[in-house]
């Protein structure tokens, strides 16, 4: 099959869906690669580099759409691009079928198969093609960098000869992939980072990235993020109020706020209100990653950077991944390449569009002249349902003491019972057994007791030597054989001699092996 990547026509888009490296990998799958001339220039890949990777350079988009069987691109297609598709061709790109119904209809009429990279289900197996996550990762990183370039201070606190600099305080709202990436970048730059998310189960992830999770004092049964494939869902008005109150309290302290809260298929929720912006210090920065969907802050202007009257900068760019085109193209092209690998199971250049496969089915939005969106629920749930975590209550000293007391009492009780039962048994035996037996019994019981006491202390790593030693020692049975060998008939002598011989093997073998083992233990 011929895979072709056209130049992105969207204004300001610098990414490209194929890199020289991904082209090489695609060719290993048995495909042929085409690219429109200059498609990779803005992402830092020259035509020359593509040519070296064995990619055919095509002079314009029309030619590319004509020759390629599979068109790979980044942005959702424009109308004129859809028109160029026809039955038998496949388009792989971001598509957002939920918001672009007209486009979906147009794709259906064209008869082409469309695979939407944004519809790849969130299951472990499909992570390698999860382009949304790879782009969100970049966006989160870039958001912090943008915030930093608009922020007039250091991120880290420093004590210098020229004075003390306080550390920057960063609040990240929404701890999805972008949010977590932002947290990671921000903490590694040295800022004090706080993070909030409506899904309390992500607190652990937030803390693992080195940020502090902002808990709400709100007793609602929060919905499990796992139900909706790991995305947040709409929250109740009361919850929203509690959340806003918390933000209002934090706002005056924060130097940088990065909002990433998006609910799939909806307008971005307003989380950072006008009065919060007004209460912030001059020079503070807000980066609104939800700008494209109306923004988490209503003051945000899409694709622009504005400064409010009280000196707060609000960054509303929507093209963060495009601003790091080389990096994002590399990742996106790899996602595409993995998708192609799943589509060509034979690695022979033949595409098998398996509609039974959860991942391929989920991402396909039109196929064979029909709209196949929305897909049926995948057979595999994205994330295992979170078990409600039971909070381990800190015990008070009184409780601890009571517990210790109870444990002590239980121990005493079991010991006393054991002693009583054991003693009773021995007494009972003493009633019937002859005195000589009782003498031996005492020796026996004491030895068992000593054995128990001694063995508890043996180091775990020495269990094998212990076994070898006890094995060697158990050949003490030789004493019995020695005592009998001089007594009685020839038959007895032979049997006893055999027993002596066997036990002797064991004595020497056992001790030597133990010595060998122990000689190996060494300290560095």
């Amino acid at each position: 099959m011929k895979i072709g990547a056209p130049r992105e026509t969207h204004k300001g888009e610098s990414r490209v869906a194929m890199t020289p490296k991904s082209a090489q990998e695609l060719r290993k799958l048995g495909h042929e690669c085409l690219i429109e001339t200059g498609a990779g220039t803005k992402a830092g890949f020259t035509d020359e580099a593509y040519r070296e990777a064995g990619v055919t350079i095509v002079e314009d988009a029309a030619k590319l759409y004509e020759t390629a069987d599979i068109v790979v691109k980044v942005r959702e297609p424009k109308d004129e691009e859809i028109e160029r598709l026809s039955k038998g061709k496949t388009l792989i790109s971001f598509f957002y079928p939920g918001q672009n119904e007209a486009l979906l209809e147009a794709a259906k009429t064209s008869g082409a198969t469309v695979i939407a990279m944004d519809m790849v289900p969130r299951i472990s197996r499909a992570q390698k093609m999860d382009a949304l996550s790879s782009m969100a990762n970049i966006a989160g990183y870039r958001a912090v960098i943008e915030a930093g370039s608009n922020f007039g201070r250091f991120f880290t606190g420093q004590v210098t000869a020229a004075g003390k600099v306080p550390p920057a305080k960063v609040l990240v709202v929404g701890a999805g992939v972008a949010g977590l990436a932002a947290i990671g970048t921000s903490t590694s730059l040295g800022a004090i980072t706080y993070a909030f998310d409506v899904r309390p189960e992500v607190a652990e992830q937030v803390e693992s990235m080195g940020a502090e999770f902002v808990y709400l004092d709100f007793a609602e049964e929060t919905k499990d993020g796992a139900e909706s494939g790991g995305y947040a869902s709409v929250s109740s008005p009361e919850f929203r109020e509690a959340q806003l109150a918390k933000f209002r309290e934090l706002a005056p302290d924060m130097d940088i706020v990065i909002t990433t809260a998006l609910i799939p298929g909806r307008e971005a929720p307003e989380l950072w209100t006008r009065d919060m912006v007004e209460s912030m210090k001059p020079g503070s920065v807000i980066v609104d990653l939800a700008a494209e969907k109306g923004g988490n802050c209503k003051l945000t202007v899409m694709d622009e950077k504005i400064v409010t009257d009280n000196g707060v900068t609000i960054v509303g760019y929507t093209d963060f991944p495009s601003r790091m085109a080389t990096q994002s193209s590399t990742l996106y092209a790899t996602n595409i390449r993995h998708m192609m690998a799943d589509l060509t199971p034979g690695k022979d250049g033949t595409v098998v569009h398996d509609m039974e496969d959860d991942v391929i089915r989920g991402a396909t939005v039109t196929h064979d002249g029909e709209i196949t969106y929305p897909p049926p629920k995948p057979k595999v749930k994205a994330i295992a349902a979170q078990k409600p975590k039971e909070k381990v209550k800190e015990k008070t000293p009184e409780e601890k003491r009571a517990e210790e007391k109870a444990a002590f009492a239980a121990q005493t009780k079991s010991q006393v019972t054991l002693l009583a039962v054991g003693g009773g048994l021995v007494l009972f035996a003493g009633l019937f057994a002859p005195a000589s037996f009782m003498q031996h019994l005492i020796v026996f019981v004491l030895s068992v007791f000593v054995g128990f006491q001694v063995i508890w202390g043996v180091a775990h790593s020495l269990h094998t030597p212990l076994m070898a030693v006890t094995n060697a020692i158990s050949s003490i049975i030789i004493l019995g054989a020695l005592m009998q060998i001089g007594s009685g008939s020839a038959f007895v002598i032979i049997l006893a001699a055999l027993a002596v011989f066997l036990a002797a093997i064991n004595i020497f073998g056992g001790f030597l092996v133990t010595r060998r083992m122990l000689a190996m233990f060494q300290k560095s």
Partner: protein
Amino acid sequence: MAYGFTTAAYVVAAVLFILSLGGLSGQESAKRAVWYGIVGMAIAVLATLVGPGAGLWPVSIILILLGAAVGYQLATRVQMTQMPELVAAMHSLVGLAAVLVGFIAHIELRRVAGMTPVEREGLEGFAALIAHKDPAELAILRIELFLGIFIGAITFTGSVIAYGKLAGKVSSAATKLPGGHWLNIGAAALSALCLIWYFNTAGLFPLILMTLAALFIGYHLIRGIGGADMPVVVSMLNSYSGWAAAAIGFSLGNDLLITVGALVGSSGAILSYIMCKAMNRSFVSVILGGFGSTGGEQMAVEGEQVAIDASGVANALEDADSIIIIPGYGMAVAQAQQAVSQLVTKLRNQGKTVRFAIHPVAGRLPGHMNVLLAEAKVPYDIVLEMDEINDDFKDTDVVIVIGSNDIVNPAAQDDPNSPISGMPVLECWKAKQVFVSKRGQGTGYSGIENPLFFKDNTRMFYGDAKKSLEELLGKIEG
């Protein structure tokens, strides 16, 4: 006069044996502890030779020397990886010796019983000892020697089967004859009947019948236990050999035998208990063989096992600062401990933190891994137990799992229906990256799927552990 001396020597020997076992609490004191054991044994044997066992002493000495030669050969030739087999094989010797001693006691008992009082006065050695017993003592004696033979016979066949399983000569799978445990119960009941019969008649026939039944129990019981439970079995047989010695000690009226037998018996029992606890399984269910069946469905494992090659692992190791290695039986099978040791040396020379995490039941013997690593000269202060290291995984860059499976299975914690549910495991999946060196995609000894291999941060490094590691060594500088 001789007997007083013997008793004194026995006291000394008993104390030495106790010190010997107690001394194993630390690596350094253990070296001294073995000498205590050796000296104790020498004193015990010498004291017996000059005292109650003086009859035919030249024969005894010759036989001991012969045994020494064989034992020396065995102990010096054996590979460290074959240690479990050797220990199991040697238990069988003790078991057999106990059976022989028991039978001799019976023969002598019969002979003495048939004598006139005058003849009895002329007896020497062991026979003289029996001759001075009253009827009640003789009755007790019969029970004692019966028990000694019974336990000894079980130990004997059991150890032979355990040896066979560990050496790969017998299938390690848990197999039972038709009838299962009813056969064992039947054989045990038969033995109990024989005890009553023998107690009343003192005939040879019930004794032989019981011995056959006990031999069968030993054989069938151990056949029914899967290879993964062999550490517990070996330690249990160790315990049995001790109890057999103690029972024989009772019948011979020898306090040292009783003392040492009890020491060995109780130590083996505790060791078995410690291991069962480490596997979160009851002793009974181990002995009854196989993994218990559970009610519900096991969680299905989703995802795929992603393979990686040596250079991929090498790159990750170059980048890592902290590394934990989890060895298992697979390392022992592949004899990979030397390669592991070299790898560790190289990585440590680069200034990386490298540690070992040892699960209590890794391998086929308790402490099996420690011995192998020690053989390969891995310093023991970087070899840590599960409890010491389990909390450190989350701060670890790379974990290398070499030939272990069940002990790193997250299903033990996540899946209440898993056969190993509740067993403490090494939580290696919490590390940033996990590499699993494994021969193929098969399941482990317990035959259950391991979700670890399907996790996103796990990469499978397929191939024989030794070859894989040697390939890896070539790619790491230092």
